[in-house]
């Protein structure tokens, strides 16, 4: 088939080059911490470099073999963010000699990359996920109910703790929910979009179409309410609204969403002490100083950002440890802000923005609504996490106690985000994979290499007629830019 169609650039070389760069930057950060704090290069620099390099290489090889056409930026950015997170956690470990967390985080990084590879290798066709959407969603909800009956940890009932290991089901639930939303909306979006009633200028959906999705959301919100985890609630809600809007194009959803979030958040903010204090701090971060209670964690975080200024103090030279509790997880961005400055912070935000943009681009390039919605959902999920966490520690929104994707200490979050990247890699691979002309589909060429490739490719072609896509299969559709019009036309056609 390569002889018939020119092979599009796979981007794997770019990815490899960027991975080398990412590992090099992370290792430089590690050396910088050592030289600034001890005046010497850390003795295990080589081990750290080789370890991170090995993880990156394994992930790269898996992508090369099983997701050949994936977006080449996703994996290097994930490796870079994870590597920098490890560096800064190591740096903060140096300020808290009794609480060494970098080794554990390194283990979680290995687990994360392992799961990334597992997803890349095992998930032959992402559309399998659509079939199990309900199962995934229900299982996750069950898992999330469990912590509600366990004692609260750090003021929130979001942990399942078994011995030394702890896990937050809420983290992985985000992805499960994105899958469920994508699946449900792909099936029912016509009904949701085309029926409903108009009240004033808002087109509101009919209750019965909305039923299942609101039910799931309500159960999730109720659990979170019980567990006092405002951050996950905000992200769930944000994801819900964004995906509904994308699927149905109805601005009414945004209004419904705002009302829903208001109903959920306002009582919690007013009457739940743990959350109420965070609201007060958000409105006036220096409140506790005026009350003579010393700076709150939020005030210390703002001090850290301010101390960083434009260029930062340099790794290891700041004093973000003054934040105290959870400085390595919820507050880790403050250390970045202080030690690499606004310039470094802008670079971090840019990295996240690139992943988000690439996710949306994958969504645009894909042809089936489920894939599209899933890619957009996952990208939005990342953007929302970044916004809720970074906005919280910089006093843009109330603090919610979430972890910065890839950077923060915390296994559940890290593992979840590696899975998120793995799914985007698979979606991207499917989006860019050159298509077989229709006749060849009927007679797959022999050979193991072609076999596996054909399976991956045959998926979309089989699926799309089922979705009622008249435009698919038109020769010359291989380039992503051409896809939109063809894709658009299909959307309003009722399912057979």
């Amino acid at each position, binding site marked *: 088939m390569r002889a018939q169609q020119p092979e599009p650039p796979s981007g794997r070389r770019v990815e490899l080059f960027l991975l080398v760069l990412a590992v090099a930057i992370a290792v430089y950060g590690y050396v910088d911490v050592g030289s600034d704090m001890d005046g010497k290069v850390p003795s295990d620099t080589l081990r750290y470099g080789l370890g991170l390099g090995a993880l990156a290489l394994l992930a790269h090889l898996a992508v090369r073999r099983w997701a050949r056409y994936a977006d080449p930026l996703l994996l290097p950015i994930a490796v870079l963010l994870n590597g920098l997170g490890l560096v800064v956690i190591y740096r903060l470990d140096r300020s808290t000699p009794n609480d060494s967390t970098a080794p554990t985080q390194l283990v979680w990084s290995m687990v994360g990359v392992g799961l990334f590879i597992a997803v890349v290798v095992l998930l032959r066709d992402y559309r399998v996920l659509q079939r199990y959407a309900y199962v995934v969603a229900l299982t996750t909800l069950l898992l999330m109910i469990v912590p509600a009956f366990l004692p609260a940890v750090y003021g929130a009932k979001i942990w399942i703790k078994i011995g030394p290991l702890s896990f937050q089901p809420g983290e992985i639930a985000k992805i499960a929910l994105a899958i469920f939303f994508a699946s449900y909306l792909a099936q029912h979006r016509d009904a949701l979009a*085309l029926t409903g009633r108009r009240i004033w200028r808002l087109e509101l959906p009919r209750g019965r179409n909305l039923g299942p999705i609101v039910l799931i959301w309500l159960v999730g919100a109720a659990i979170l309410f019980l567990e006092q985890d405002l951050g996950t609630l905000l992200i769930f809600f944000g994801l819900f609204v964004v995906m509904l809007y994308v699927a149905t194009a109805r601005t009414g959803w945004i209004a419904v969403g705002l009302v829903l979030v208001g109903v959920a958040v306002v009582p919690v903010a007013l009457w739940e002490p743990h959350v109420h204090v965070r609201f007060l701090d958000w409105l006036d971060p220096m409140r506790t100083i005026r009350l003579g209670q*010393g700076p709150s964690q939020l005030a210390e975080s703002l001090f850290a950002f301010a101390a960083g200024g434009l260029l930062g103090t340099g790794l290891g030279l700041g004093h973000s440890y003054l934040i105290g509790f959870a400085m390595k997880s919820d507050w880790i961005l403050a250390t970045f802000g202080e030690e690499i400055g606004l310039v470094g912070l802008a670079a971090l935000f840019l990295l996240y923005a690139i992943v988000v943009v690439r996710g949306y681009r994958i969504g645009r390039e894909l042809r089936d609504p489920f894939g*599209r919605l899933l890619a957009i959902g996952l990208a939005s999920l990342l953007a929302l996490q970044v916004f809720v966490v970074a906005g919280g520690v910089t006093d843009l929104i109330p603090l919610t106690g979430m972890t910065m994707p890839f950077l923060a200490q915390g296994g559940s979050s890290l593992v979840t985000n590696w899975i998120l990247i793995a799914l985007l890699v698979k979606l991207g691979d499917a989006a860019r994979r050159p298509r077989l002309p229709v006749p060849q589909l009927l007679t797959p060429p022999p050979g193991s290499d072609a076999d596996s490739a054909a399976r991956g490719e045959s998926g979309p072609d089989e699926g799309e007629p089922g979705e009622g896509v008249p435009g698919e299969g038109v020769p010359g559709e291989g380039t992503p830019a051409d896809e939109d019009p063809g894709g658009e036309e299909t959307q309003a056609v009722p399912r057979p």
Partner: protein
Amino acid sequence: MNRRTARNQGGPAQRPGPPRGAVRLSLSRTGRRAGLFCLALILLLLANATRLQVFQGKSLNENAANQRTVIARYSQPRGNILVAGEAVTGSKKTGGTLAYQRTYTDGAFYAPVTGFSSQTYGNTLIEGVEDRILTGQDSRLSTNPVWDAISRAPVPGGNVFTTINPRVQRAAFQGLGGKRGAVAAIEPATGRILALASAPSYDPNGITGTGPATVADWTRLNADSTQPMLNRALRQTYPPGSTFKVVTLAAALQYGLYSGIDVPTNSPDPYTPKDTDHAITNESASDACTNATLAYALQVSCNTVFGKVGVDVGAQNMVRMAEAFGFNQSLQTIPVAVARSNFDTDLTSQALLALSSIGQYDTAATPLEMAEVAAAVANNGTLMQPRLLDKVTRSDGATVQSFGNRSFSRPFSAGVAAQIQQAMVGVVDSGTGTSAQIPGVVVGGKTGTAQNGVGNSGVPYAWFISYAKPSATAVSPVAVAVVIEDSDANRADVSGGGLAAPIAKAVMQAVLSG
């Protein structure tokens, strides 16, 4: 735009739609909007970070609750204060958040000069006024300001070189011994302060850190009734008593009241100013103070003569002379701030003017001020601005700032100065100050025994001011003022000549022998 118009035209025509076929769903369009929304969120974060790190950076950094300022201040060894090229201060690692803490090699001995630098109680004296140099914050310390600002590398603290002569300082403290009092010694020709002693002193090492031990030591020092942390040489004023007669003498000669020190003064004994019934008398009735010459009156310290001289000079000229000697300066700094020495400017009563002119009533002076009086005489009528510092350097030794000699005033002519010197030499040769005599050295001085307390109920203060010259024509290397406020001493024994003059002598000898 193209895409949208194409869709609008072609959409309905291509396929049969539902009844509301005009509604078409475009994942592309909504996706693009949602994508832009996500990017807007991240952009908002960036804008907010800019607000914190750039626009509000200054106010957040300067917030009193922000510990970074304090952490930075103690993040490196503090620069040192040097006496005769040797550091009398140091720094030690604390192992805590505030990395370095001040130490003093001979704390109590130099405390009246250095002051203290405490993580809990701030900084005083040289530690206070040169704090920015010592911490490295002073912009002049940076060899490459632009690079230092970018790299944020802390600039090492600078060093402060004092004018103190350790031998003179030692003589002053040894002379004071266990007695309460103070010594200030000046090099008259330059204004360099050679010694500043205040007894009892205290060891600042105990209060430089943080924590309960520091607080306990601070509390103990403040509760001590002898006020060990009071710098008596610079910050305490005493009625100067008879030592002030030197100022009155200078005024009498400078303003032409008498042509010389050997002219009879036409003064009664006792002397009763016109507007009072209270007569001014002399300590000893055996002295011939009636119509005494100025020289003799200074020699035996006639209150009657100088009381009347003061009245004859007049309030205006007395104030003028006192201020030329450095009285009534509210903001004197050396560069450490010195307390204001007072001579009343609104005296209308002759009785009070007479008392003020013999160093009583409201007249009050710091020991440093009285040393300046002696120094102006010794320096032939030119009063040099007293100074405690020679220079400030970077940690590598490069000079950042030199403190030159500056004249403060010229209270009287060289001719008048010669006559005052002659009178003061008379005091030491054959008057009240004989215990300050140094063989082979020309010493001029003046004793003082100032009344203290309401109705003279307290033990009087013993004063001695003097200067020394290797020969009559030589430049004077030292002028000194000593005050003793010893409540344990026998009241009858308290006199300038008895308690204070020997200390002044030891201090002058320490200078002359070097």
